[in-house]
């Protein structure tokens, strides 16, 4: 048996009187793709923010490869190999595409600089489908290309664990298929991925396992199809009448 890459236990985070994440535990095996589902406001993004260090947990532990990272600063967690994208896509507007990716390469795990870094930036841009766009200003990118660029910047950190926060949201059907293929190809490279997602097609075709959250708690865990047919999950999404 291998040990989990990411192991969260008893994770709790309050905002004033609101318990955004309530005693959540989960474990991610290396190379696994896990979906984090749940209605809006159920605490999914807060979990990602806790893992990536944007927020500190009130209670509970977050272990990456056996090391506690729950109280580490975001830049330290990033350097340990945890990369993320943001719910509302965040590219660096005054930098061109190459510089956006260089920013990830220059400070991440196995950071590079100079000629080697520039070559790696070209490779990563090609990897996400932005070949030949290195000198393009970010203002000229379409929405999906901005998402591709954000993913390239996350991959530039050479992550062990990739956190995708609704990275597939807002894409049209053909873009969605490209996006799913791209995420799937990352698994082929041995990357472990935790994705917050509402797009059910993507969840069914990508995820090995899913966790469903509601009001801060974990209410279900298992294979996507099994989880999505559980009564409590349906109740969380649709209310009592449909369960």
């Amino acid at each position, binding site marked *: 048996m291998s040990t989990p890459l990411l192991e969260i236990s008893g994770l709790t985070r309050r905002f004033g009187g609101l318990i955004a994440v309530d005693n959540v535990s989960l474990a991610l095996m290396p190379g696994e793709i896990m979906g984090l589902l749940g209605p809006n406001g159920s605490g999914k993004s807060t979990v990602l923010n806790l893992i990536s260090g944007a927020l500190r947990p009130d209670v509970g532990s977050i272990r990456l490869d056996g090391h506690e990272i729950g109280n580490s600063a975001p*830049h330290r967690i*990033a350097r340990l190999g945890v990369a*993320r994208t943001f719910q509302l896509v*965040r590219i660096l507007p*005054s*930098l061109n595409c190459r510089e956006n990716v260089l920013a*990830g390469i*220059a400070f991440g795990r196995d950071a590079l*600089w100079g000629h080697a870094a520039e070559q790696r930036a070209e490779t990563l841009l090609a990897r996400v489908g932005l070949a030949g766009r290195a000198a393009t200003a970010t203002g000229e990118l379409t929405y999906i290309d901005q998402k591709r660029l954000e993913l390239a910047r996350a991959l*530039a950190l050479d992550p062990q664990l990739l956190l995708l926060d609704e990275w597939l949201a807002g894409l049209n059907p053909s873009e969605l298929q490209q996006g799913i293929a791209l995420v799937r190809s990352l698994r082929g490279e041995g990357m472990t991925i935790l994705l917050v997602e509402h797009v059910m097609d993507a969840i069914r075709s990508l995820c090995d396992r899913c966790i469903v959250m509601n009001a801060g708690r974990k209410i279900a865990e298992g294979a996507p199809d099994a989880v999505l047919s559980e009564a409590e999950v349906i109740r969380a999404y649709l209310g009592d009448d449909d369960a």
Partner: protein
Amino acid sequence: MKPVLALAAAAIAVAFLAAVPLYADAYQLSLAITLMNYTVLATAWSLFSGPTRYVSLATVAFFGIGAYTVAVLAERMAWPYILLIALAVGLAVALVVGLSTLRLSGVYFVIFTFGLAELIRQIVTWYEVNVTRTLGRYVFVDIDAADIYWQLLGLAVLAFAAGVLIRRSRLGLALRVIGDDETVARHIGINTTFAKVALFALSASFMTLCGAVMAPRWTYIDPAIAFNPVVSFQVLIMALLGGVHRLYGPLFGVVPLVLLFEFLLARFPNHFSILVGLAFMLIVYAIPQGIVGFAERIARGKRGAA
């Protein structure tokens, strides 16, 4: 431009500027010193505030610390030691202030830095009134105008060299990322506190040394002269007029504005402040990108049309 050519052009420019005291008369040299003083301050200001977009009004706090250190230590030790001590004091204040305030952002940082300069002025005033019991000091050091000019030129060269090196380094990229989106910066592994404090301290070091070198110009200083907040605003507006996204940008703000202030002071001494205010408003309204940004946009437009 090729790096070798740029370096040669810079060397020729510096040699030309270094020769100024040899043929300038007293008035021209005095004007050259003012130009060089603001070149150092505006370039130092934009080293930190340009890429990070943290607008600092603490320029005169460090400038004044440098000037006051010289006033206190003059005649007690050799000039290089005085400069070193001034640098140490400025650096120490910058590190303390940087570590405690750079988590502030936007307008809060602006107000804090403005308050800092005023606070230091009040503390110095309080100390002089209650402890030394003389508000104001004479600065007697054996340094003439040409020496001051050459030292300022040296500081300007160092500030430009630092700017070039930083822009080519990871630190330079880190600062630009911070200016764009500090949250992203943290999540791609940038130690934002270190980057910001390092640059704030470097920028403050140049400002402190500039104040130290300028102190003998006055012969007499008191806190109102050394910590005059107008200096912070002038440096800010010069850097903005020139444009902060290029290292040489502030230069294009310093030269026209120093000449304008000189002209206004000579011709309209009673209306100086209101005319300067008008100039500030015109600059911000008409060329928000700065002169360099404006010129680049026009050049791009012409190329695009062709």
